[in-house]
């Protein structure tokens, strides 16, 4: 018989258990739990363990709004409070009672992001009190739920300092004593929910007032909508709604103390000198079958200048590359997908985009910086490599060829301008021969470059114009070489009537543009420039300059070949 047993309900239960165990000695029996088996301390442990970053609270409460179908979420941070207001479905009395549950949620893991039933308590360590006001769509009543976190903590602190064996408050009692519910006299009939954290500590307010980190955090963790100034916003919204089940995009505004309200949008052109210069996005499903559907859906857009998407943006690494999305929040950073583009990873930052992971068996890890290792994840990676990466790399190489062709054609235009000016003056016969050689090489290459461009390209007509001019120059030079005196007479006649000019003696105007250095070519091609690379480029550059004159054709051709190899071309 146990000593010190009280004559209470608990005592009676204990006697009954003893008797049952005694009667069925050796046989395991179910042991029922009671409310007193779960201590209030659990709340403190869970919230401290799961939510160490005050920004996590913003995420949790905003995510609840997303799960409730909100289109707009406003976040307002004042001197000591944080308000998260959404226009979602709202809650009636039953819903708001259920919201208080710990570890129980009516949400479904398949449909919602929040399903663990703990998010409401993410502000436990941050504020004195959490107040939720909600009106359900179609309902007249407005309810308020108040959780007095500071009072709960005070009670737990007091109990911690008590002697061992002292009475401890159960979780149920803690919640019962320090939660209030009310129906409010609200005249507004607008549905939605407002969550306010009252009396947030100053250090947390300071952290929540860091505009840039809050914005980046929200962009990472909420299904935020495209900015209206992103050129493909409407098209992508339509495609994603069609192809990504339960695709949601919310409009989020953020207002920090003393600052005007601002929109938090993805793909905003803020801080981008040239706005968004991108090709039409590629949008495709990945993997899967007609029965199961695709395992992912991606969109990606290429920077046609063959540089990083963030090359002229004030924040490096913001949008260069492709990011995983699962139920609207991001998994890891854009660097996560880079390896899928190997061995052509140097074109990776030319793209920006998103991969919406649809396979429910691909599950984010707790930190949301990767997916849990599983066969489903490996299958996803395999498909990304064979389908998405291969396709995009081909696109990049094609664009690279076109871009190079466009640059060459532009360069030939300048070359022709200089040649035309030069030919208006008198020059020795050997120079005429050299010029003719240059023109013939230019014509040949110009035609080749023109054929590399799509017919819709504006540079095609320019190339044709240059070809016409080059042919005219060719004819002039051929005449000159055939009958130099006649040609000289013709030119003099032109000069007499005000055309042409005689250059100063000794000056030979340059025909060709300067040759880029190896370092310049690597940077232009999107290579990551490490210290070792810098040293190697210096060695090779010095060796090339030692072996060849920088004015020579061989020198020029040497670096042109390198340029073409870097962009995956063969110069036949």
């Amino acid at each position, binding site marked *: 018989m146990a000593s010190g047993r009280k004559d209470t309900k608990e005592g009676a239960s204990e006697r009954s258990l003893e008797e049952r165990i005694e009667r069925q000695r050796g046989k395991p029996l179910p042991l029922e739990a009671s409310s007193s088996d779960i201590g209030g301390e659990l709340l403190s442990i869970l919230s401290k363990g799961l939510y160490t970053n005050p920004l996590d609270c913003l995420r949790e409460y905003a995510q609840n709004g997303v799960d409730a179908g909100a289109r707009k979420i*406003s976040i*307002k941070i*004042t*001197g*000591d*409070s944080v*308000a998260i*207001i959404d226009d979602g479905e709202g809650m009636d009395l039953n819903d708001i009672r259920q919201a208080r549950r710990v570890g129980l949620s009516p949400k479904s893991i398949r449909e919602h992001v929040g399903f663990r039933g703990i998010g409401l308590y993410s502000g436990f360590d941050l504020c004195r*009190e959490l*107040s939720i*006001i909600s009106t359900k769509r179609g309902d007249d009543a407005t309810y*308020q739920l*108040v959780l007095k976190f500071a009072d709960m903590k005070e009670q737990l602190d007091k109990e911690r300092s008590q002697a061992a064996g002292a009475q401890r408050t159960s979780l149920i009692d803690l919640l019962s004593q320090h939660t*209030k519910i009310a129906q*409010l006299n*609200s*005249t*507004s009939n*607008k549905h*939605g929910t*407002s969550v*306010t954290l*009252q009396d947030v500590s100053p250090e947390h307010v300071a952290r929540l007032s860091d505009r840039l980190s809050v914005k980046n955090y929200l962009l990472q963790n909420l299904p935020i909508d495209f900015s209206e100034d992103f050129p493909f916003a409407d098209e992508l919204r339509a495609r994603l709604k069609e192809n990504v089940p339960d695709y949601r995009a919310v409009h989020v*505004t953020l*207002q920090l*103390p*003393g600052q*005007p*309200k601002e929109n938090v949008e993805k793909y905003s052109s803020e801080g981008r000198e040239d706005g968004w210069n991108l090709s039409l996005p590629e949008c495709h499903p990945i993997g899967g079958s007609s029965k199961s559907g695709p395992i992912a859906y991606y969109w990606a857009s290429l920077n046609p200048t063959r540089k990083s998407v963030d090359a002229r943006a004030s924040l490096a690494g913001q949008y260069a590359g492709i990011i995983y999305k699962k139920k609207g929040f991001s998994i890891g950073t854009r660097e996560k997908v880079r390896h899928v583009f190997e061995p052509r990873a140097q074109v990776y930052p030319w793209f920006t985009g998103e991969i919406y992971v649809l396979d429910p068996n691909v599950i984010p890890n707790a930190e949301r910086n990767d997916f849990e290792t599983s066969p489903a994840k490996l299958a996803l990676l395999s498909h990304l490599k064979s389908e998405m990466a291969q396709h995009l790399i081909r696109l990049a190489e094609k664009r690279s060829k076109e871009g190079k062709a466009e640059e060459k054609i532009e360069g030939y235009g300048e070359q022709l301008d200089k040649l035309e000016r030069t030919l208006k003056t008198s020059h020795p016969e050997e120079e005429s021969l050299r010029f003719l050689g240059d023109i013939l090489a230019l014509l040949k290459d110009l035609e080749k470059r023109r054929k590399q461009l799509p017919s819709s390209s504006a540079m095609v007509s320019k190339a044709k114009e240059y070809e016409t001019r080059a042919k005219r120059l060719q004819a002039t030079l051929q005449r000159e070489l055939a009958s130099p005196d006649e040609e000289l007479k013709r030119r003099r006649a032109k000069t007499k009537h005000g055309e042409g000019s005689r250059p100063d003696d000794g000056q030979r105007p340059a025909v060709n543009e300067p040759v880029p250095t190896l370092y310049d070519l690597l940077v232009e091609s999107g290579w990551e420039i490490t210290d070792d690379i810098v040293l190697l480029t210096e060695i090779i550059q010095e060796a090339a300059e030692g072996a060849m004159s920088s004015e020579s054709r061989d020198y020029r051709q040497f670096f042109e070949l390198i340029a073409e190899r870097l962009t995956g071309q063969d110069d036949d």
Partner: protein
Amino acid sequence: MCAFRTSDNKDVIRTSWNLPVLQAWHEDTARKLAYFGLTGPEMLDVIAWREVLKVWTAVEERPRNNPEKRALADLAAQEIVLTATRNDLDDGLELLRGSVEDVILEAMDENGIRPPMADTRAAHLCNFHYDLYNLDFDGGLGFASSTGRPRRVRALEALFRRQQGNSFILFLTVNVRDTLRPKVAEFLTALGSEGSKEQLDWYAARQDGQYEYQLKAAIPLFLRHHAEVCGFDSSFWPPLAYEGHERARMVHFVCLFKHTGALFKAFSSQTRDQVIALPLVRCAGGNLALAHVQHPGFDANACSLSLTYLPRDCHSKLFSSEAK
């Protein structure tokens, strides 16, 4: 704060009495106005006046020693933010926590946040640059005590120092409580020595159920004095008495203070006698009318001629009903 919940009378005052004043001021200054005051959770004033407002600083108290009042105030603060968000008013909203008189006196709220329209000088020196103050003093002007003058009275004085150099409109609503009655009567009696003795003695002698008359006379004269000392030309609309939420008796004052740049003291265009001669207006059942009881020598015709600055429909309501 329940005295200041809306009612039919309050709605009429907001739209028919106050809004024309603001519209005229907005036209005069050729800019939208910066508002400071007690918006209440439903922000009805800001919503009604939003076409002429630019920014709005809302103040919500934060009682320290009364958990129930604290809970109500926190709820009100939350509702202000919610109302602002739902009505697209959140961009111009700044919410300060603390008593409005403390914010005026200290130039910051309990979180150390300064009113956005305060300049950057030290708190005891800084000026405010608001165009409109909307102050609802629940509980009247405060309590007389041996430790000093009521904080609200000091805040009203301080308002003029804070706004020095910046003209502004004051909407002041006072709950008719007789917490300062003897002092108010004393003030009116003493003022009588400077003129209009008969009228001021009459106001000072008002008894139970007519305390609003004492406030009607005393508050404009009090404000006028402090305004002129700080260089403001002050003008007053007829004080307005009404029953608010749960039949609370209120008196509402509309005052315009124009900065003159005077070095020592301003001299208002509206004379002291004209201020005293202003009628008490009643708003009952949503209708405006002159109060049946006015001070001795009240001349409705003369009043009608001097109050031409009232909006036309208000003027005609007051004086056509008086004519009847």
